[in-house]
């Protein structure tokens, strides 16, 4: 059974579909990249997967022991967070609330989990620092640690390298790859087709044509070769 199985899904706001007939599957340990032009509905799709907005049609089923609120989520940065007084530890620990139900406080297990991921992502010496004073790359690591506290099975990343410089971008991609190698399934929204092809094993392309398949299939498909040429042309 797959972690997530999406069948003929339509996503959008207030009854207006941004994108229709999306179908794909994510198995444990997969690395799926969602690519497509601006405004093609990538973020809307992600919000639907997270249950923040309701699907307009179609079905999303969770399996393999994955519960709906067990998805770790790395959102795009919000305006509020730019001047929010919170220590790195407080932010990471808040990811553990996914297991709270009605329990009001963190227990020893939560604190251990948070410490573990703080160490794993190499931000131990930032633990007491204020989140808003960190660099973009450090902030992303903190949010990634928080997402992992929510679950180890599946993380959703929304443009995780937006606004990062090339070196930090590279580090971020390597870090995500490392997590994936340890068995966490990854769904990543990205503009960066080159990175998608380098790291992902499956690609979901949404836009005028919807494509879902393995990386090799994508490179050879019409949608993929067109998009690849276009991006390659832009960059060179």
């Amino acid at each position, binding site marked *: 059974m797959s972690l997530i199985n999406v069948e003929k899904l339509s996503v959008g706001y207030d009854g207006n579909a941004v994108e229709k007939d999306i179908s794909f599957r994510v198995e444990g340990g997969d690395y799926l990249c969602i690519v497509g032009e601006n405004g093609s509905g990538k973020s809307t799709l992600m*919000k639907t997967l997270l249950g923040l907005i309701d699907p307009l049609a179609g079905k999303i089923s969770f399996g393999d022991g994955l519960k709906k609120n067990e998805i770790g*989520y790395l959102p795009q940065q919000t305006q*509020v967070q730019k001047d929010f*007084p919170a220590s790195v530890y407080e932010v990471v620990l*808040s*990811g553990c*609330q996914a297991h709270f139900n009605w329990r009001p406080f963190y227990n020893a297990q939560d604190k251990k989990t948070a410490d573990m991921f703080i160490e794993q992502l190499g931000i131990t010496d930032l633990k007491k620092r204020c989140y808003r004073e960190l660099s973009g790359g450090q902030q992303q690591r903190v949010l990634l640690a928080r997402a992992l506290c929510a679950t180890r099975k599946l993380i959703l990343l929304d443009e995780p390298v937006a606004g990062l410089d090339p070196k930090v971008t590279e580090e971020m991609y390597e870090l995500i790859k490392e997590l994936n190698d340890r068995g966490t399934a990854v769904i990543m929204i990205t503009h960066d087709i080159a990175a998608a092809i380098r790291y992902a094993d499956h690609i979901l392309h949404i836009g005028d044509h919807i494509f879902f398949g393995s990386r090799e299939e994508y490179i050879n498909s019409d949608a993929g070769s067109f998009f690849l040429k276009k991006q390659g042309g832009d960059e060179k």
Partner: protein
Amino acid sequence: MMEKLLLYLSRPFVYYALIVGVLIALCSSLIGVTLVLKRFSFIGDGLSHVAFGVMAIAAVLNLTNDMLIVMPGTVLCAILLLRTGQNSRIKGDAAIAMISVSALAFGYLIMNIFSTSSNLSGDVCSTLFGSTSILTLTSTEVWLCIVLSIMVVLIFILFYNKIFAVTFDEDFARASGVKAGLYNLIIAVVTAVIIVLAMNLVGSLLISALVIFPALSAMRLFKSFLSVTVFSVIISILCAFLGMIISILAGTPVGSTIVAADAAVFIICCIAGAVKGGLRR
């Protein structure tokens, strides 16, 4: 001066006022941090005007205990304002401005037309700026204030972690199964309760200051959510206490004196924050 102070402190109405003042300062600063960070400060401001309007109705109806109508009325408006504020940002802002200004206008209108009191402008002034009502509290009102304050503090402690999560990143909290809508509702209701309580102390026009200043001051100096919350409570209690003592000794209006103290502390915190930041560089 000390003798004068001791003389005043031996009167029950003075220490009633001190107890209530400190409790209100405590509650308003607790909720203030969240309101400022969630960009909800405008809800506090809007609600205080609504409370004025409802209070005017209560005054006209000649109710013996106006809390009974002011509290539910304001809580209801808080829920409404929260809904409109969430649907669409710009429209929500305009809706709140509209509701709060009309509540103010209608409140004054109603008081003016149906007033039974001989000193109308005095009544209006004391509702807006809270001049003397803090010194005329009955023991029932004091107990009501104590009970409500304890409830606010308990709710805050119990939901502290959830409130942090919802304030820091509502989408993430929602995605990980925290019922963000419910906690926004709790925040709005608690805000309404605090504003109605605080009207006695500083009057409806100055409440926002009580809610916002301690949080902003603490944010200049501290870097974690917990330390900001704790420090803003300390600032708020200190300012309320000092403000009340000064106003008793110097005969100044209570509300304005407290807010002036809050503003002064904010400026001190700004300077201290700038110096601290400068030293690190």
